[in-house]
């Protein structure tokens, strides 16, 4: 009985998978996107990029949920956060995940960059992926900065004031930078609106396609240090060394030809001359 149900379920799901594959090619696409050979050495370090992707996905999901209750006005922002924390079901969990995964996101990004830097993973042909990654880092920093003010409590408020005043020290454009962030020339309702717009729409909209580009470039060139690439590079290195050795050997032969060789050639040439 159980066995028959199991067989039928397997057949049904197999049918659905085949049907989808035949029409969209999604299964091969997923296989192509999800499976990536990773070197045996330091395999756990290669999960750092995935950890970043995971935490940033959490940010997107919990951020969308928080928007159901958050109100971006100076009067209501703190109250709405308080409502989320105290009255909304699982509000503490949702906002806690948003808060803590934001913190861990920064840590993971630092570790991920360190891993890429120290393993030399930014070298050709992956330079552009490093550049895209740095842009992503700057966008995440912008998200952290703008998200802090949205709570509209003393902590976030003064941290943002300090951050905006740091921006006001930029050479030549300092005044423009702080007026852009303030939405005027004083902290007020416009400031909160702008930070909200930047945090919720501008930067996520910029970050999403760049994550796509980052992943595309990763899949295009593969993870750096895969077994294949490693042996390939090692073989190339050995080949080059062999050629260098050979070239050196040849030069030696031309310049300082051993006595035996010289006598040999002299004999041969002399013989040939005699022959003429």
């Amino acid at each position, binding site marked *: 009985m159980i066995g028959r149900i199991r067989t039928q379920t397997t057949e049904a799901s197999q049918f659905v998978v085949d049907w989808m594959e035949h029409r969209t090619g999604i299964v091969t696409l997923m296989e192509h996107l999800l499976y990536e050979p990773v070197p045996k050495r330091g395999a756990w370090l290669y999960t750092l990029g995935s950890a970043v992707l995971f935490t940033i996905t959490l940010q997107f999901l919990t951020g969308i949920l928080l928007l159901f209750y958050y109100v971006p006005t100076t009067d209501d922002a703190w109250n709405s956060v308080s409502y989320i924390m105290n009255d909304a079901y699982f509000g503490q969990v949702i906002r806690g995940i948003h808060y803590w995964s934001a913190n861990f996101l920064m840590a993971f990004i630092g570790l991920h960059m360190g891993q890429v830097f120290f393993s030399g993973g930014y070298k050709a042909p992956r330079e552009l992926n490093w550049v895209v990654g740095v842009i992503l880092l700057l966008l995440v920093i912008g998200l952290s900065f703008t998200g802090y003010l949205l709570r509209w409590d003393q902590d976030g408020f*003064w941290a943002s004031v*300090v951050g905006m005043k740091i921006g006001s020290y930029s050479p030549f454009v300092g005044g423009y930078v702080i*007026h852009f962030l303030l939405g*005027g*020339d*004083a902290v007020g309702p*416009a400031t909160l609106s702008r930070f909200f717009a930047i945090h919720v729409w501008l930067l996520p909209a910029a970050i999403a396609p760049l994550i796509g580009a980052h992943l595309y470039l990763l899949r295009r060139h593969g993870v750096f240090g895969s077994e294949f690439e490693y042996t390939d590079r090692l073989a190339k290195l050995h080949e080059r060394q062999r050629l260098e050795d050979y070239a050196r050997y040849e030069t030696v032969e031309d310049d300082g030809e051993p006595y035996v060789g010289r006598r040999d050639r002299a004999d041969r040439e002399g013989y040939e001359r005699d022959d003429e």
Partner: protein
Amino acid sequence: MAELQKDPMTRSDFLGFGVMGAIMGALLTIPPVAFVLSPIIKTDVLGDSDVGTGWEEVASVSEVGVEEPSHFKVSFPIQQTYGERAIQDEFPNSGKSTKEFALTNAIWLSWKAPVKEQGRQGSSGDIIGKPERPSILDEKSEGFTESERKEIMSRLNVLSNSCAHLGCPVRWMTDQQLYLCPCHGGLYDINGGWVGGPPPRGMYRYIDAEVRENGKLYVKHAFDIEPGLDKQQPYVV
């Protein structure tokens, strides 16, 4: 070149493309950019300010401490986006928001202590004496004459509590007889002069301040900012 000559772009094509391209480009980019940057256009280009430019009452000068500074609250109305008066006054009976937004600053008032020896920014603070409270205040707290008001104003420090480094609120430390910024440890003396820490200058002073006959201090939102910068600029947040 040979490739291009096969399908040459005529002069009129080029001009048409360039002119149309410029028009389309302007149509597509100017509105959104100006929309997002409108605060910069308003404040930096047109020179408007969100903060009200009128006089605001602070407190009676007789309440200022004899030896120690006292802090008071001062609110300047701000007109920003949906908080603008003109927008709120439209359709007065429609029950929409009429909240008045204000920039509330703390203001430190103290009597000037004479500077005995000028310090140098970045290496040492001023050497100062005891704060000198005008003797008129022992007799009366209001109804000052013109000369008495001048005397009071020349003796009064009217300081913003916004640290000159990055804008955190400073507070008076009674033990050290110094203002301390909690963020990065900027230190100032009772006159607001630099004593230690990262601030590049002393505390900001309100440059428009006056005592009126009722004995109260009134200030405008304007500070002693380096020449060349707008007095309303938000370096005092």
